[in-house]
């Protein structure tokens, strides 16, 4: 695979593994987590987000669109999503930062210079490059090739995965990945299906497999009241049985992504309830009680 579809390159990413990192977000995800905070990463196809509240009705996007998706009515900008083919041409012209294009096609030779720009920051802070998404391993061939290039340059690599990928895909990246940031949403299959639309059988098997391979793994558990909050004990027990878990992070669910769903014209599935600090502390305590580093 010579190209990949990505939706963002985030520099100074300090929450996607240790140190200062650059994170590449790949488009497309096999899960449909109700709380997904990156809805622009779900679909494999390119998308245009329109943040109506940022639009200043300057009209700059009109001539940039060949399909008439942008128009003006009584001095106000109107967006016809039906006419939009998500080519992204308008986003470059938007003066109010109201239009954002998600779904750039990139090659490895385009990405590498960008990822190497911050190499010295990676080295001084113990950071590196993280591949995330969506689910980056949907584009496993590209990821493997990119990771190989990064390792060749001496860059620390992390792969953030939901684990719902084929063993073949996983095997492709294992040799070039220093740490897996592995998402765990639930232990019980029915709960997992209710939360994500998919069984977690493959996910648990892949995690066990990675552990057996001796790969360093950091577990990330989104804590979502009303969905997986009662799964902590079971997940902790399971994780305690593994050997390579360097730490477990509990990620409190937040609903900041609401405006993104709207901007993308997607139906929001975000839960209403937010976790309290006490709930998060209790979840972390539960993990610690099983000897896990939090």
């Amino acid at each position, binding site marked *: 695979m010579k190209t990949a579809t990505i939706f963002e390159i985030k*520099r*100074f990413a*300090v*929450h996607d593994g*240790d*140190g*200062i990192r650059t994170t590449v977000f790949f488009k497309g995800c096999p899960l449909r987590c109700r709380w997904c905070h990156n809805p622009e990463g779900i679909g494999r196809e390119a998308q245009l987000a329109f943040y109506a509240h940022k639009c*200043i009705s*300057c*009209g*700059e996007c009109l001539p940039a669109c060949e399909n008439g998706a942008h128009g003006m009515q009584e001095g106000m900008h109107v967006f016809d999503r039906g006419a939009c083919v998500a080519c992204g041409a308008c986003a470059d012209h938007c*003066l*109010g*930062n109201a239009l954002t294009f998600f779904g750039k096609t990139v090659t490895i030779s385009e990405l590498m210079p960008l990822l190497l*720009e*911050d190499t*010295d*920051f990676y080295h*001084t*802070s*113990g*950071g590196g490059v993280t591949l995330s998404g969506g689910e980056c391993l949907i584009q496993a061939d590209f990821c493997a090739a990119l990771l190989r290039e990064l390792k060749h340059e001496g860059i620390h690599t992390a792969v953030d995965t939901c684990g719902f990928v084929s063993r073949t895909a996983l095997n492709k990246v294992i040799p070039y990945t220093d740490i897996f940031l592995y998402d765990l949403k639930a232990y019980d299959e029915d709960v997992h299906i209710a939360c994500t639309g998919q069984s977690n059988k493959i996910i648990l098997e892949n995690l066990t497999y990675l552990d057996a391979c001796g790969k360093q793994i950091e577990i990330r558990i989104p804590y979502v009241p009303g969905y997986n909050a009662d799964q902590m004990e079971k997940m902790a027990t399971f994780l305690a049985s593994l050997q390579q878990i360097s730490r477990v992070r509990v990620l409190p669910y937040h609903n900041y992504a609401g405006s993104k769903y709207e901007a993308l014209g997607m139906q929001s599935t975000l839960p209403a309830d937010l976790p309290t600090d006490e709930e998060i502390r209790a979840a972390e305590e539960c993990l610690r009680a099983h000897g896990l580093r939090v």
Partner: protein
Amino acid sequence: MMIKHPFPHLSQVDREWIENKYHKVDEEFDPFRRMAYHGYEYDAATGMTDEEINHGLATLANELRDQPRPLIKASMVAYVLDHTRIDVNAHDDFVGIYSWGRLIDPYTVDPWYQEIRESVAAELGNRYYTELEEAGLGWIRLDFDHAVPDWDSLAALGFPGLLARLEASYRAKKESGTLTEKQEIFYQATHLEYEAILRLLSRMHRYASRQPFARAGRVAQSLANLLAGAPQTTHDMLQLMYLYFMISECVGHYQVRSLGYGLDGTLYPFFKRDLENGRATREELTALIACFLLQFSAMGNYWGQPFYLGGTGADGRTKVNELSHLILQIYDALGLYNPKIQIKVSKTTPRDFLNKALAMVKGGSTSIVFCNEEVIVKAMMSGGATYEEACDAVVKGCYEYAVKADSIPISYNMINALKPIVLVFHNGRDPRTGLMLGCETGDVTSFIDFAQFYNAYRAQLACVIDKTMVWVERLERHVHEVNPALFYSGTVPRCVESLTDAMDGGVHNVTDMWFSGFGSAVDALMAVYELVFEKGVTTLAALKEALDRNWEGYEPLRLRALACRHKYGRGDSMADAYACALHRFFSSRFAGKKNCHGGNIEYELHSARAYLAMGDATEATPDGRRTGEETSKNASPSNGADSAGVTALIRSATSLDLSLADSGACLDCMLHPSALQGEGGLDVLYGVLRTYHDRGGASIHFNIFSADMLRDAQQHPEKYQALQVRVCGWNVLWNNLEKREQDAFIKRAEGIAP
């Protein structure tokens, strides 16, 4: 003013007392009004009121009017020292000088400075001096604000020893028959000041000895030691530093920079000896140092008092010692923001020391500056300093470095890099004053390519610099006549040996050229390139019209200007290349050149508060800035231009060879608190600092804020009494900022991704 962190070594009552020493804390305080305040009243029997002293000075001025100026100034200083009320009290380890409002100024510096300005104006036939500032193009100022005395001499000799050294030098000159009239005057005047200082010490000693409380006994002992000769204890040395500061800065009109040659360096021999001799416990010394630092914090002057911590000796060993750690701990525990700590960072800096300082930054101690020692050495050596001198560099201002005991700035002049863009649009005529302050570069609407515009900008900038330098040179010829630096010169071996005032060539006389609005100027150039010549979305004529109308009716064009791709601070190759060119252009105007006293002309990428004042007077510019809005500051990008994040910001800043800024450059770095959360947060901060320095960055300081927090602080000041922000070369409490300054901070924080 101060922050009420509990501190076990100093009682809350003592802390409040010290706070009230310099201004009444229940009254409104303006950190920009120099020494304008009195705190609690002193014992009336100890001396005169300010009014009475003023009256005496007026009479004296009349009597002395035919005397040489050094003698007039020395007599005036002596009069204040002889008559000021003094204080020793149960809450303070340091004495009090009541008349600290530079009372001699109306009879000395003020009229003498005015006279020189008028005479230069007559000589040159223009008033460029004032026009430059009115137009927001820059300022020209003789410098009495960045003097670092020879702390080594002060520590080794004390006031009596300095006087004896002066007398010995005088005798030698006299005996050799080489004494000139000028030297005789310098000697008499300096002698007069030092004698007055010893009389003041005697007066204070007698007063302290009469007080019944134990603390007065300790103060009396420190004064007795200082009267007898060199300081013996930590208390003596701190008392001496404090007295030097108060007399020089608050009576003699020379701002004192750098508390010691590194507070940890100058103080350490005393500290160590006290502990070894059992003269004081660690706790007692901790309380003493805390009490000393609190004096400066309580004064609350916006410009602050800097001092270095750490550094590397010429022998390659770190200068960080146990006292460096202790000073950081005290500073942290007291929650101070003034005096200002500048840490000299190099590969020898112990990681635990650096981590402690970074943890303090993370916790809100934003006043700490991290300087790159390697760049300091490089910059100073290219100005002629030896390796040893460069390793021993002292901090003489917000970030500026200097050779210790051998250099003093005689003028500091500002050039606003952005305003010459406006001159290009008006063919050299300033639209604000209507005066021809630049040069003719042609009708901008006729320019056919970007090169023509760019060259016109360079020509305007060069013209402004050249005109400025004519005035600077003329003023500098007379600098010693405006404000003789007697007290200062008495500390410096070279001045004493030659019996020459430091400002008259007694040491190297340095001209400082500061550059403000650097990032804004690059962005403005890039906007012309992109909008007019690359994309062709407007013409120079239409852009001129938009700027003349302060963008009114041209909002879409202004938004396009703001949205331009090429801006300094986001790692953009083209913008960074122009930034490098501008930086080199400025540096090359002065590199290797000497002022009329044979001293270096040094370039500094530092704007102080000029980014506000110059912004005020600068019309709308092509980068989308409206009339009156602030410009960029220091080596930093304009507000919002660093949209590609901190790593790109650092790439841009370090694309400049910052060692070309002879006496310093600083980058302002704002980070979102969430970026530094957790145990990995320190690694992230360290990574940013280390990479900046490894890439050749100079000074850097951090503000750790979210926009939400700042908005809340603006609405609920009462909740944020302790919130301090690094403004430019200094820190202030958030609540002391003007609203527009707060707004600018909030705007900047909005651009920092969580």
